[in-house]
């Protein structure tokens, strides 16, 4: 091959590759979210386009959403509107990546804030400015396997932690087995896997005992909070894992596999995300429900759900205390939203996160219908269709009650929240592993919180 030909060919090839490769920038509002059910999201987006005529370029983001978005924001890749988790909210506002919607000229903000649950509203507001509208929201709930409890001689799950210990020990000793034959070694399963959005269990248990972890200025109060409740709850957990052996040590590593575990009949009690209950009580997914329905001779196509796993309030240290954790996933405008697209992006957000052109909470309703995802709007809980559907697998009254007293993580609005998350999770795991006492662990977390607060003031 002649040298000249060689050089020419390589140059042409390189040009060809570079030219033919980049995809064209699509028109419309650039909207991104994590890769949960992108087809369903597209359906909702198409409905918006149909009703308003505004084009939208939707993309689902693969991989770790948070990390990918950080890269996107830092490099100022075009973006108008995106999903945001409440755990990242404060961080992203502080970094200057989100844009509030309460100062867009010429638009009509017609949000009935009374119809939104307080903990949701708080999670979407930062220092008085409004940023987000809800995508979905949910709460932590306590469930127990009714069939198993009955087999061990009990009717329902107890309300206090001490009673729970007693009952769980007896359930363990009853020698029950899962449908596939595995014995019930640890009746209770919780979620203590390290993750930026994790440790729902710890927060839910604290809220259920009405523990105040931080004051209004995000100063840490534990371990000397009222009646040392935070410490006592940790102690209960430690005893549950190591002394009585009623809490599954796998709780330290399980995440969403919690629902698989409960559905397979490995445990009799669990603290789960509410929308998982719809999955667990469905015979298609859950061995315990399938076994339950088979035993009663109910054919496959006649009934899908059975309330084998039932809801109960999250157990607390003392009777009369109640509470639980709630979290919010929202839509928000990006700070790098193109100025000529702001109004349109807002309309998209409004449609998906609030009401459609017909004045109906269409999108929220749609998500609930298809996947059982929770919503932030109080009035939907009185909707007859929604009630009917929920009754198939859950307890509507209890859900209503809990949604009203659910709280978001106390210091979620602190700019140092993710640093805090990074620190407290391994420390609590060390307590659970017996590597340090609850008081020591809480003490160290307290110290770190103070350092972080100083760093960020």
């Amino acid at each position, binding site marked *: 091959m002649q040298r000249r030909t060689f050089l020419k060919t390589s140059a042409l090839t390189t040009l060809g590759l570079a030219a033919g490769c980049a995809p064209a920038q699509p028109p419309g509002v650039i909207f991104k979210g994590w890769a949960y059910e992108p087809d369903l999201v597209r359906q909702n987006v198409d409905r918006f386009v149909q009703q308003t005529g505004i084009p939208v370029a939707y993309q689902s983001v693969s991989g770790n959403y948070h990390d990918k978005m950080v890269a996107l924001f830092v490099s100022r*890749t075009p973006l108008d509107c995106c999903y945001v988790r409440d755990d990242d909210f404060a961080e992203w506002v502080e970094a200057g990546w989100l844009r509030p919607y309460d100062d867009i000229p010429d638009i009509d903000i017609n949000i009935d804030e009374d119809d939104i649950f307080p903990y949701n509203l708080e999670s979407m507001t930062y220092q008085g400015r409004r940023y987000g509208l809800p995508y979905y929201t949910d709460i932590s709930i306590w469930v127990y396997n009714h069939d198993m409890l009955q087999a061990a001689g009990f009717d329902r799950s107890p309300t206090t932690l001490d009673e729970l210990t007693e009952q769980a020990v007896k359930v363990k000793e009853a020698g029950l087995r899962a449908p596939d034959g595995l014995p019930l070694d640890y009746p209770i399963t919780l979620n203590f896997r390290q993750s930026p959005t994790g440790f729902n269990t710890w927060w839910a248990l604290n809220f259920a005992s009405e523990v105040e972890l931080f004051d209004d200025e995000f100063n840490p109060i534990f371990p000397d909070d009222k009646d040392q409740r935070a410490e006592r709850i940790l102690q209960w957990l430690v005893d549950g894992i190591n002394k009585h052996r009623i809490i599954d040590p796998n709780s330290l590593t399980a995440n969403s596999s919690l629902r698989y575990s409960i559905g397979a009949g490995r445990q009799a009690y669990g603290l789960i995300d509410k929308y998982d209950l719809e999955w667990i009580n469905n015979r298609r997914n859950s061995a315990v429900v399938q076994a339950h329905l088979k035993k009663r001779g109910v054919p496959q196509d006649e009934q899908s759900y059975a309330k084998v796993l039932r809801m109960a309030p999250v157990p607390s240290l003392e009777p009369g205390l109640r509470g639980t954790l709630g979290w919010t996933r929202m839509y928000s405008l990006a700070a790098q939203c193109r100025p000529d697209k702001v109004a349109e992006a807002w309309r998209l957000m409004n449609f998906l996160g609030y009401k459609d052109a017909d004045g109906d909470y269409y999108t929220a309703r749609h998500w609930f219908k298809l996947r059982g995802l929770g919503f932030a709007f109080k009035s939907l809980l009185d909707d007859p269709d929604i009630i009917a559907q929920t009754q198939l697998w859950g307890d509507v009254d209890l859900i209503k009650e809990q949604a009203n007293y659910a709280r978001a993580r106390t210091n979620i609005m602190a700019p140092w929240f993710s640093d805090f998350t990074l620190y407290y999770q391994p420390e609590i795991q060390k307590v659970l592993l017996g590597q340090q006492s609850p008081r020591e662990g809480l003490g160290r977390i307290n110290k770190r919180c103070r350092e972080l607060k100083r760093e960020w003031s």
Partner: protein
Amino acid sequence: MKPSLSKRIILYGLALLAALYLVVPFLWVALTSFKPEREVSQLHWIPQEPTLENYALYFDTDNRSAAVGAAIARQFPRAIANSLIIGLAVALINLFFGSLAAYALARVDFKGSLLLMLFYLGSRSVPGVAIMIPMYLVIRSYGLLDTHLAVILAHSTFTLPFSVWILKGYFQTVPLELELAARVDGCSRLGALFRIFLPVTTPALAAVGIFAFIASWGEFLFALLFTSTLHAKTATVLASDFAQETQVPFSLIAAGGVLVILLPIALAFLFQRFIIHGISGSVKG
């Protein structure tokens, strides 16, 4: 001299153990891919109600299946195509540029060559996490985000050092007389390289090409970083979509895992002789 019977029994026994070690962990994944969702977290390895429904979702281009994860599964054929394009391109780049660099290092004795080898090697010691964001910025500034080229370039930088090392070793074993004869006949230097030299080194080239392809096929961190739409998304990135989506049953992920390794395994099976021959020639040098 044939080894004794007892020796052969031990040998076959050990070989079987080795094969089990290599295969059994994945066997579990393969078996799970045939389980219905309900059986995923149950004890038994062998599905009690084996089904092909997990695989069906991957080729189900029309049906708007309501199953969780179906949307991702349907992107699969396109993702495999992307992986193929990228893998082939990376292999070609490694072959072409790797040969050039290795030839220079093998044939020309210049002072900087050890330093150059260290440079190539050293580029492998940088942790991906460190250069992720700057690399992202570079790719973005060239307008290459979400293109095949970005991933091809990134993968090439990771695979070139090894390719150059292998090829250099092999090239050093080829007798100089070959090119000298060609030059005497009036061939240019590059001409001798392409027409006379490289054909002789086919085993090493095959080895390097396949290694580069498989390495690119399995890479996921940078493919994930640089692609966002189906335009350039690779199969391994699709697999990670699953892992992030906590609601997707492992049986579906398992089916995806099986589909993703089929091609590399087939390649390995067909070309294992070449691969080993190529690398062995290199080590001899």
